[in-house]
């Protein structure tokens, strides 16, 4: 992965101002994404998991510049897209697309399926009318929809078929990266597996990279090469999918994994039950957010401590947080790195 990554995000912050009072002065900020560093290689799927409100969707939108980052940088194929204005961004957008959770909301009900899928070509001034007709038919076929679907409207389709339309639209410009924001969470299980299979096939055929955002850890494990776990605006652990499930190091990852109900009554696992809820990103605790939630005795130590990701094993990084690591892991990190943060990814 040390070859140049397709997408490289560094110290990204997205804060939303909160205004109040008579003058609507800014009274605070929701720190939705608070210092995230990550890379996605060509042809790779990075899964992003976390609970609602942890900032994963905001991160996904910021990465494709649907939201303006507050600080930090986003490089796409070594081009800095962090502060590029919308006009200059347009030609670059061909390379990164997005699939949304609710295809009913993200497809215009007044447009035929053909015009929905054709629109990206028109915006980018590609092809003649006849060519575009051909391309749309090809895309419909590729995502498993009949050619007759083109002249119908999105609301005539079921949830799974609508998601196929959304995928066809995202594929239209032959992007390099697709941000998938909860693409299967609104679907029934039997339909979910159809869409997951399609995404895997498309990735192999076109060499796509995915940033795959979901709250369902089994789904993320299934589709990802590497998985990043997010908690309250920060990434707390990144590792290969196999490793993060076999050998999670961060207490939050462990709790999250143990909470997944297993579809096997023989294998009822012991659960790590968390108390309380995710703290508000409006007023995050100054130290370790998860240590705070657990009421960990070492929480006071983490105030002012650099909780950046550090390498704990090859291909495995975890936040250097004494509240959330075993004693051995914490000692290992402390001695190995003695203060310096590792910011280059493995």
């Amino acid at each position, binding site marked *: 992965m040390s070859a140049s990554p397709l997408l490289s995000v560094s110290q990204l912050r997205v804060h939303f101002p909160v205004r109040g009072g008579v003058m609507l002065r800014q009274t605070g900020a929701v720190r939705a994404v608070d210092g995230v560093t990550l890379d996605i290689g060509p042809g790779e799927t990075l899964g992003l998991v976390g609970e*609602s409100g942890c900032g994963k969707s905001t991160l996904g939108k910021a990465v494709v510049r649907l939201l303006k980052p507050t600080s930090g940088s986003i490089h796409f194929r070594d081009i800095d897209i962090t502060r590029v204005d919308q006009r200059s961004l347009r030609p670059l957008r061909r390379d990164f697309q997005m699939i949304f959770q609710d295809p009913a909301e993200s497809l215009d009900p007044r447009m035929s399926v053909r015009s929905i899928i054709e629109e990206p070509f028109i915006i980018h001034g590609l092809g003649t009318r006849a060519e575009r007709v051909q391309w749309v038919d090809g895309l419909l076929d590729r995502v498993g929809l009949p050619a007759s679907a083109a002249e119908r409207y999105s609301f005539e389709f079921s949830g799974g078929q609508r998601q196929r339309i959304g995928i066809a639209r995202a594929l239209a410009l032959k992007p390099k990266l697709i941000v998938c924001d909860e693409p299967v969470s609104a679907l029934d299980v039997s*339909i979910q597996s159809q869409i997951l299979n399609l995404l895997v096939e498309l990735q192999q055929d076109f060499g796509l990279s995915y940033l795959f955002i979901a709250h369902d850890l089994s789904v993320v494990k299934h589709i990802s090469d590497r998985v990043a776990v997010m908690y309250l605006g920060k990434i707390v652990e990144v590792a290969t999918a196999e490793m993060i499930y076999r050998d999670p190091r961060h207490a939050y990852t462990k709790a999250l*994994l143990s909470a*997944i109900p297993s579809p*096997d009554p023989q294998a009822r696992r012991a659960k790590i039950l*968390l108390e309380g809820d995710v703290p508000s990103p409006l007023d995050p605790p100054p130290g370790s957010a998860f240590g705070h939630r657990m009421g960990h005795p070492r929480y006071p130590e983490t105030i002012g401590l650099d909780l950046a990701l550090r390498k704990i094993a090859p291909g495995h990084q975890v936040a250097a947080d004494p509240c959330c690591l075993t004693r051995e892991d914490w000692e290992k990190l402390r001695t190995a790195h003695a203060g310096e943060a590792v910011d280059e990814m493995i």
Partner: protein
Amino acid sequence: MTGVTHNILEVDKLITSFETDRGLLRAVDQVSFVVPEGKTVGIVGESGCGKSVTAMSIVRLLPQPAGKILGGRVMFKGRDLVHASDAEIRRIRGGEIGVIFQEPMSALNPVHRIGRQVAEVFRIHRKITKKDAWDAATEMLKLVRIPAPEMRMMDYPHHLSGGMRQRIVIALALACRPSLVIADEPTTALDVTVQAQILDLMARLQSEMKMSIILITHDLGVIAETCDEVVVMYGGRVVERAGAEELFAHPLHAYTRGLLHSIPTLEKPPKSILSTIPGMVASLADHVHGCRFCQRMGRSSGITRDRPGFAEVSPGHWVETCPECYQP
């Protein structure tokens, strides 16, 4: 069989239909199952399979005037709820049968304080003084493990997180110590860690209060973790019914197998091709008399044949015996 297991609820050939512009739609089509005392029965299926309508038919909370129970019996402690008077069903609902709804925000009234809403249950069902009802409500909040219950009583629903709100809805459902609780997707709107808390809470309260639970969910993981018996529904019908361990170990109906195989699990190799069920859940409007799952699979033989029978093929294991879909 050792001892006599009492069934607290017996649903027998229940038929529920909705009047729509396109005619009468049969959402629940001769559904039968039983709920043994103190056990949890899960009803699982995809959207539109009739699982929620089945549950709401039991307590007669169907959308009016469209929803109608057209046949069958729902025997609860010897009484047929289908033919109970409105007054009687109101006494039972919220009293002997508690209901937990999916979306806690819409199950709670946004303009009343939590305390008033919980106390109201006691006022209606127990006819006790305001003061006593308030105290009983505070107790309930303590029971569902809400921190600082006295303070929370004064909060409005929007002050609470999703998990806390669902605890309040559970408190409402359990207030009168019901012997049966119907939980319709109680954790679907919640995050996994909160889901684990709520399922744990329900299991603990179940053993403390000795109640039976009907748990409706689309999540086979939740079923496997919490249920003693499982009812699998498809197209308004029960296609398979068995003890949880038996069902997961020996699924006999093609639909149950399809569902089990299509979920990605932590054990399956990454990016492997998942098995799928082709097509989509059939619309209720395309009613067929024959096998509904054959309809989805596009097997004309099964559609034109008579409706498959429902037989007990091994003790406690019932399956719809369509020659194509029943795979022993």
